[in-house]
């Protein structure tokens, strides 16, 4: 069938368009890729939204009025109550700026990616890796600060277990701690990257199946146009799922960061 013959190369083209390409400069040296560009767009949007919010909140006093202030406040309070107070207990004020910054940064990047034509800034492993690296270093520094370097390294071994088992479990724990860096980055990156590739693939199928009807109206073309509508319906469903995934992935990343900070502080 005509549409499916062209599918393979089109999908290859799609995946190629999603991999990082340098707009300016060189991909391995100094340059600017399309993801970094969209990340800067998302950062600008985030700063504008937050500073308008702060100004409006200062103007209105203690009672929030208007949908914008209430909406942003809902997010901030959700971040504070669910992520910080619920997990971190007494020290939540120290960690709240970091947790809230991570949450809003990833949320802004993901939401910008949902707009048709824009890419999410976190859709490349560079950005996701940078965020995961900051989170990883942060919670290790918190662990070292609260228990001392040797104490933190020792705390990775469980108590009450005899010597040989102790060491084996310690080794596994060290490995899994370093694995947290990789899983955080890869989870965020894969969800955004693959989600958009799948959306692009269904859009591609929709348009490929629609092409025959532009060339001539035959029964097969009409059948294929019907299939095109089917792909469109699935595309809309996946679009909705992607919107949810944008928020959920921001939440999961921040939640896991908070959990790691809590584990590092209490010395489990």
């Amino acid at each position: 069938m005509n549409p499916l013959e062209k599918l393979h190369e089109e999908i290859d083209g799609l995946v190629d368009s999603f991999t990082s390409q340098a707009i300016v400069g060189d991909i391995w040296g100094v340059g600017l890729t399309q993801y970094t560009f969209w990340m800067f767009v998302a950062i600008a949007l985030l700063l504008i939204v937050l500073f308008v919010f702060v100004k409006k909140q200062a103007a209105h006093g203690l009672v929030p009025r208007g949908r914008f202030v209430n909406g942003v406040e809902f997010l901030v309070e959700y971040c504070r109550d669910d992520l910080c107070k619920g997990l971190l207990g007494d020290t939540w004020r120290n960690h709240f700026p970091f947790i809230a910054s991570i949450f809003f940064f990833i949320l802004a990047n993901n939401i910008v990616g949902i707009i048709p034509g824009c890419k999410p800034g976190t859709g490349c492993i560079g950005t996701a890796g940078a965020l995961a690296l900051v989170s990883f270093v942060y919670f290790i520094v918190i662990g070292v600060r609260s228990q001392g370097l040797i104490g933190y390294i020792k705390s990775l071994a469980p108590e009450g277990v005899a010597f040989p088992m102790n060491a084996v479990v310690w080794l596994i724990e060290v490995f899994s701690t370093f694995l947290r860096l990789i899983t955080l980055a890869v989870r965020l990156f894969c969800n955004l990257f693959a989600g958009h590739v799948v959306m692009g693939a269904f859009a591609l199928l929709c348009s490929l199946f629609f092409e025959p009807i532009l060339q001539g109206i035959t029964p097969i073309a009409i059948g294929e146009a019907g299939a095109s509508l089917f792909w469109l319906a699935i595309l809309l469903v996946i679009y909705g799922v992607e919107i949810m995934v944008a928020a959920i992935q921001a939440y999961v990343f921040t939640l896991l960061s908070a959990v790691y900070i809590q584990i590092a502080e209490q010395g489990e």
Partner: protein
Amino acid sequence: MNTKKLGLTRVVAMASGMALVATAAAPACAFAAGADILVPKPPEFIPALIAFLVIWLILAKMAWPMIIKTLDAREEKIADDLKAAEDAKSLAVENEQRSRESIIAAENEAADIIAAAKREGEEERSRIIAEANASAVNIIAKARDAVEAERKKAMVQLSGQVVDLSVEIAAKIIGDALDNEEQHHLAEKYLLEVGNLNDE
């Protein structure tokens, strides 16, 4: 928070330097064709790192403290207002209790006063009536005595007059045969008889 941020930034810069070296060494290793996807590329990694650290700094200095302060102030105000309302309510309940008690006491006192007044009124009334009765009895007794005295005086007067009158009649009937003494003695004897009859 400041020193923590600076120390953290230093550590993160070190770690990112190491990551940069690792990624610079990446193309030298042999990877599968498409594994390029999973390797962080410097033009993305470093701007992302720096951008996030800058954003973190800006928000932690300028945005979050004010937002958290406003949210805290609001919570505090709500808690204070609630507490003030609670206090006012308990005060009001106390006041109501006290006022109700004093009303009950006042009612009791009023009932007592009324009962005492009634009782005294009753006593006064009966006293006045008794006095009036007594004085009435007195007056009647006095009147009777006066009437008795008057009757006796009248009787004496009457008897004198009867004596004189009977002497005159007898003198007229009998003729002037008797003289005054015998007439008197006769008249007194008849008067005594009449008086005995009267007294009976």
